[in-house]
């Protein structure tokens, strides 16, 4: 059963507000809770402004959470100091892959120095020789030609750059990797390369992924479980097949109905479901487990109707 599996990340009532107390206060993430199990791929889906990227950045502590707890391997990391030894340890365990292959690599650094950045910070290699050897291994792992380690990022294509970003994240041997829209800036034929690579590495090293995206078909493919975010809240969370086959929340339904399918016959008959954005939430609603492993943001009455 799901509950017996080891939890690597537990998010409890996480809130991330910006410009607190000012007229332009933004509740980017508004009281969300979820668990991520060891070894799984947890998909986080939402449209722009839903708070999905903010959630990822709060978990990896690029932001200081406004409220709530983030347990990583049972330890609360939401309040550790940003430059203490605890934080340094945590920085090795959790890593991030970024969206924009053009902005995520320092244009003034050689590929080998980009990849070795984490090795240098944490003192994982001794001497230039070992450093170079490790960089070669990492480049090999992401199927890049190690001969190119002295080149600069702009000489690589988008897909190759994204793989350099993956190598940089994996250099410190993390347990948990947050991938923040890692393929949305890539071409279709290249997306599959990157997704396959991520899956291979996951199998080899037993990694846990949190995969943030707006492309639902790819998320469905890569994820074991999916959470759908809307306006800073998780509105539905379930196994990926379950979400696709039996979406319960109206927003999830509208999102699924909008995915274009590369098949003209299906496209001809596709019916879009519109979602009414005017009154999405009411005060009596919360995220509740309405079916085993299937969570829905709803009120008690709706929840009872599934029993």
């Amino acid at each position: 059963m799901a509950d017996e599996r080891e939890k690597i990340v537990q998010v409890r009532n996480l809130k991330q507000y910006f410009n607190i107390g000012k007229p332009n206060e933004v509740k980017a993430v508004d009281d969300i809770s979820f668990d991520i199990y060891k070894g799984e791929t947890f998909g986080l889906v939402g449209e722009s402004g839903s708070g999905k990227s903010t959630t990822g950045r709060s978990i990896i502590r690029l932001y200081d959470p406004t409220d709530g707890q983030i347990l990583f391997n049972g330890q609360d990391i939401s309040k550790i100091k940003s430059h203490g030894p605890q934080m340094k340890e945590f920085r090795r365990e959790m890593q991030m892959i970024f969206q924009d292959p053009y902005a995520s690599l320092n244009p003034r650094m050689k590929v080998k120095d980009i990849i070795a950045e984490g090795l240098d910070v944490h003192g994982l290699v001794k001497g230039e020789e070992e450093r170079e050897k490790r960089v070669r291994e990492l480049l090999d792992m992401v199927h890049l030609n190690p001969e190119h380690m002295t080149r600069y990022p702009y000489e690589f294509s988008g897909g190759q750059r994204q793989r350099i970003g993956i190598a940089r994240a994996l250099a410190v041997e993390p347990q948990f990797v947050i991938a923040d829209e890692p393929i949305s800036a890539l071409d279709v034929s290249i997306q599959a390369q990157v997704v396959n690579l991520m899956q291979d590495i996951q199998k080899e090293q037993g990694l846990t992924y949190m995969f943030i995206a707006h492309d639902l078909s790819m998320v469905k493919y890569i994820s074991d479980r999916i959470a759908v975010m809307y306006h800073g809240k998780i509105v539905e969370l379930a196994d990926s097949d379950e979400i696709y086959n039996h979406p319960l929340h109206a927003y999830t339904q509208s999102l699924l109905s909008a995915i274009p399918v590369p098949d003209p016959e299906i496209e001809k008959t596709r019916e879009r479901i519109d979602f009414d954005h005017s009154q999405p939430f009411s005060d009596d609603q919360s995220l509740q487990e309405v079916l085993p492993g299937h969570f829905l943001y709803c009120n008690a009455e709706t929840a009872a109707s599934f029993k």
Partner: protein
Amino acid sequence: MDKILEVKDLHVNFATYNGTVQAIRGVSFDLNAGETLAIVGESGSGKSITVRSILQLLAKNADIAKGSILYHGDDLLQKSEKGMDNIRGNKISMIFQDPMTSLDPTMPIGKQVAEPLLIHNNVSKKDAMARAEEVLRLVGIPNPKARMKDYPHQFSGGQRQRIVIAIAIVDYPEILIADEPTTALDVTVQAEIIDLLKELQQKIGTSIIFITHDLGVVAGIADRVAVMYAGKFVEYGSVNDIFYNPQHPYTWGLLDSMPTLDTSEANRLNSIPGTPPNLLNPPKGDAFAPRNKYAMEIDEEEQPPYFKVSKNHYAATWLLHPNAPKVDPPASIKKRFEKFKQLGGSVK
């Protein structure tokens, strides 16, 4: 069917510090009245440059080296800058990817929509504004009369793209070129915009050239499809030809690398290995050969001609040569062939 646009053997080069980049290497197509032609390709394949050449909106270092672009038999490439101004935004108009940068942030939207009319037609300001209001209603801006005085930042991303479309269609152009109009938008908004374009096409009968990298979007909007790779069309045909009877290995690769909703994690995604060629020194043979699982010796020596698959369906691959060996396409493609048979097509 009426051919309104004919592009013949278009070659476009770009002068760069490293040398001449041959971005478009011989593209020919035509566009019929009232149809939607989708050009699909990855970034750098030259799909945007192809359509920008039509309106001559290319960067300064571009050179249209060869070819002709006939609009009702008139070569647009021979036209003066002034002659082009009478075509742009009037007979042929364009929608770009980013709705925010396509709108002037300092001008109320009503005025922006009315502007093409004031430039091209002899209409009074009052008439132009009335027309702008009508078009804004047509593209689904609620309460257009009141909102015409609003500025772009007061609208959401999807609404902004609707306004951009309104500007493009206010003069009821014959051809609407949409360059990745939905790429920057969320899926639900994307679906709305595509529905809107289809609806507008019905109402005003414009032809659409739709540029995208997303095959899902193509399936929903196109009548005919051209697949572009490394500055050339590798395959073109009707939407059913391309989706159910694809012949070029690159088209196979594209279709095969997309997960469908019933692809589960058990069957791995098929990716096209490698990256597109550098068009600074385009390969002598087939540009796709280095990434092609089915590459043959001839691919490295000579560029394949267009082989006719059926009426109006052509593909540039040596695999269609009678002497070529029979290859086994990916499983998902075979499924598509099955569907083609069900739809009454004949598969080779």
